[in-house]
């Protein structure tokens, strides 16, 4: 555990990709099984302990130093696991610290009621870095700037293999990955690749705007709606059925309705949506279904999931990725025509003669559930990553509102010394005349330089402090961009914005001229 803690500690301070790779490679080479396998699982997000919830850690901290001091400490550090690791003191009588393998295997066997006592013993035995790493591991948020892809790259490097070779066998393996290390380091045969249900790295699009389109020939491109759901990959082969996020995360568990409906073999690219009758439900409804370990029958009934297909990568045992988009599309259309499948349908192409016509269609399309347009070259092969040229996304323009900053809160993590979370409001008529009603909160959209400016502005214009929150003078107008607006009973103003971000700081505009809540309500229709 201490070696793994040192690895995470070094990684967290090391910004350079190559140096990170070297650190992971060195660790994987020098650490015996099964610890290195568990470490790899941790770095690729493959370990999941539901036994250490934030509430448990908070409880430990409060027990140690009292509620008030713990709250002040957490507010300062901005990270629960780190706070607890720092306030805890090592007990010299606690015995040797646990190994990583011991931690993982113990927790997998331990019951919910046994966990707290075990955890306390480990916290006593480890040093502060060890405690931090242990708690990061248990809460499932390592945040050391290592993606699953980078970790796989490191493991590929120690065996002199390309990363895609590791990617191909990956989904057939389980932690602690002994066959993988045996193959890469000890000359054992390559593990079976379990081809069909494996995730195939997704093809992504680059953003584009109206002006840039003029440089492109419309005849070369096909357009389709960009649905406002979650991009997924449906993969089925040899009896295995999986649903992956576009990053390769297996989300099958949360969508049994989709998995059950798979009666085919192949790999498809599509958008996961909640669909009632023929209408796509707002993104909010899909959100109810995400990040769930188990799904209730009620959930399945009220928020039925659906996949709208964009593309086909494999059909039965044939790899179609090398074909052009038009050919794949033809295969997809004839396949979907063969059989009615209520959980799957085809995303239609949008016909257009020139960019002006497409722009007009994009303008007209104000329906919920559409984020904009996708443009794909008719001859584009399906290539992993984000190649420049073949695919573009032309998002709907955001809505804009001028709001007034009301409160600011310090951020977490890297931003823990900056006021970076801003609550803003719009005007309405109150009991004592015009007043601001909070309509949303934004914590991005600004550059680092603007953040420094905003932070200083907040410090210079504070009128009240409530713990980590500062109330500011109602003077600064922020232009807020957002993708949608909905009625909300949870917000005082009665509206909730989707994906609000700060698009401009309007020092030129007096606060009195900012928008009213009524203006926002008019956007609802």
């Amino acid at each position, binding site marked *: 555990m201490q070696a793994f803690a040192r690895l995470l500690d070094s990684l*967290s301070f090391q910004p350079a990709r190559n140096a990170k790779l070297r650190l992971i490679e060195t660790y994987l080479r020098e650490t015996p099984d099964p610890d290195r396998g568990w470490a790899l699982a941790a770095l690729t997000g493959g370990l999941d302990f539901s036994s250490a919830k934030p509430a448990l850690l908070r409880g430990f901290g409060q027990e140690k130093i*009292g509620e008030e001091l*713990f709250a*002040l400490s957490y507010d300062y550090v901005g990270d629960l696991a780190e706070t607890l690791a*720092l306030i805890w003191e090592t007990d010299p009588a606690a015995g040797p610290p646990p190994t990583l393998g011991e931690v993982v295997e113990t927790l997998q066997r331990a019951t919910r009621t046994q966990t707290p006592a075990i955890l306390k013993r480990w916290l006593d035995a480890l040093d502060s870095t060890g405690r931090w790493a242990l708690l990061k591991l248990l809460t499932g948020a390592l945040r050391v700037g290592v993606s699953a892809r980078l970790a796989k790259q490191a493991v590929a490097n120690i065996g002199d293999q390309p990363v895609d070779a590791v990617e191909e066998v990956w989904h057939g393996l389980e932690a602690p990955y002994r066959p993988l290390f045996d193959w890469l380091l000890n000359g054992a045969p390559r593990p079976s690749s379990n081809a069909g249900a494996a995730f195939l790295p997704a093809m992504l699009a680059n953003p584009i705007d109206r002006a840039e389109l003029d440089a492109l020939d419309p005849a070369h491109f096909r357009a389709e709606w960009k649905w406002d759901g979650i991009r997924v990959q449906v993969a089925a082969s040899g009896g295995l059925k999986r649903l992956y996020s576009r990053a390769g995360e297996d989300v099958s568990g949360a969508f049994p309705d989709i998995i059950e409906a798979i009666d085919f073999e192949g790999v498809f690219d599509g958008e996961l949506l909640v669909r009632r009758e023929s209408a796509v439900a707002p993104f909010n409804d899909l959100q109810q279904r995400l990040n769930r370990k188990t799904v209730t029958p009620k959930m399945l009934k009220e928020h039925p999931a659906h996949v709208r297909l964009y593309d086909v990568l494999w059909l039965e045992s044939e790899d179609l990725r090398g074909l052009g988009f038009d050919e794949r599309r033809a295969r997809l259309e004839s396949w979907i025509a063969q059989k009615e499948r209520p959980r799957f349908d085809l995303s239609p192409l949008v016909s257009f003669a020139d960019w002006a016509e497409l722009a007009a269609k994009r303008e007209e399309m104000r329906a919920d559930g559409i984020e904009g347009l996708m443009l794909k070259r008719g001859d584009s092969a399906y290539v992993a990553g984000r190649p420049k040229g073949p695919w573009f996304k032309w998002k709907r323009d955001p809505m804009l509102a001028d709001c007034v900053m009301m409160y600011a809160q310090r951020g977490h993590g890297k931003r823990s010394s900056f006021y970076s979370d801003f609550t803003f409001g719009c005007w309405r008529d109150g009991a004592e005349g015009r007043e601001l009603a909070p309509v949303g909160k934004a914590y991005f959209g600004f550059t680092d330089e603007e953040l420094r400016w905003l932070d200083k502005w907040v410090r210079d214009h504070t009128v009240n402090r409530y713990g980590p929150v500062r109330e500011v003078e109602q003077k600064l107008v922020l232009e807020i961009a957002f993708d949608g607006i909905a009625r909300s009973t949870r917000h005082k103003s009665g509206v909730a914005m989707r994906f609000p971000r700060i698009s401009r700081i309007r020092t030129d505009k007096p606060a009195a001229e900012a928008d009213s809540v009524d203006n926002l309500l008019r956007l609802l229709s």
Partner: protein
Amino acid sequence: MAITTATETLNPRTWLYPTPRGLYCEPGDFYIDPAFAVPRAVITHGHGDHARPGHRKALATPETLAIMRTRFQDMPDTEQQALRYGESVRIGEVEVGFAPAGHILGSAQAVLAYRGQRIVVSGDYKRRPDPTCPPFEPVPCDVFITEATFALPVFHHPSDTGEIGKLLRSVATFPERTHLVGVYALGKCQRVIRLLREAGYDKRIWLHGGLMSLCRLYQEHGVDLGDVAPVSEAILETFKGAIVLCPPSAIADRWSRRFAEPIAAVCSGWMNVRARARQRGAELPLVISDHADWPELTQTLKDVGAPRVWVTHGREEALVHYARGIGIDAEALHLAGREEEDS
């Protein structure tokens, strides 16, 4: 009927209180560590937010006055009065003395006695041993004024030897690279050099030009820094495997481009918190602080035994909460001109 003594009736806030210019002692008509130039100042130590130029009269330890002269062009216009640890002097109706604070060379707690009541203004302090200054001395008092720079239970500064060990291990692991160590020019710089020497590192230590004059002053006061030289004097030096000390701001400055793939090490108590270390761009954060950590602060309140504690600059809230929890009458004292600096 109980006899009421002067100590019990005298409210300490009537004779020592914060003003916009700094902490003011009325019956002595002087300020302690004022933020602006005043007619008469008592200075606890030489850091910039405590010692400022332009006072008509300044009372401080001989070491602190020497530091101030180095920093403020000899201060010809200030009438300087030196007072050693353990000595005292009368200013107006107040008896003023100094006790070691263990913070940096010359750092002192100001001990003020008036009508049988004693207030100790500790200035900045720490409790762990420092090879460059005598250790903090707890002085029993009626009111103890404490700093609160690291007054949160998350601050447990690890042992100095462990942190210096980290630096030396990194130097051994990357012998082809330069280790740039960001240190505050006064106190931290000289302490880190001494810690390196005590850990057996006897090679030349290179210094940023801005650190030279105070290092010389420490050497004149008997602190043996060994072989140190300014970077500007280097001839045919590649700095591979070298340790170079500089102000933290110089790490990101063009100045640092002359070194071989430098590794940025930063020595500060703030390095204890990851987000802070990352903000500073530290690749090798070293938790070495000249301020008391949480266990030292809380231990000091117990050692001093003052029934009243006033808490200044830093995280007052947590320490006030803690002190009240152990039966001390504690409150925050907001002083002008105190900023968070390299600690």
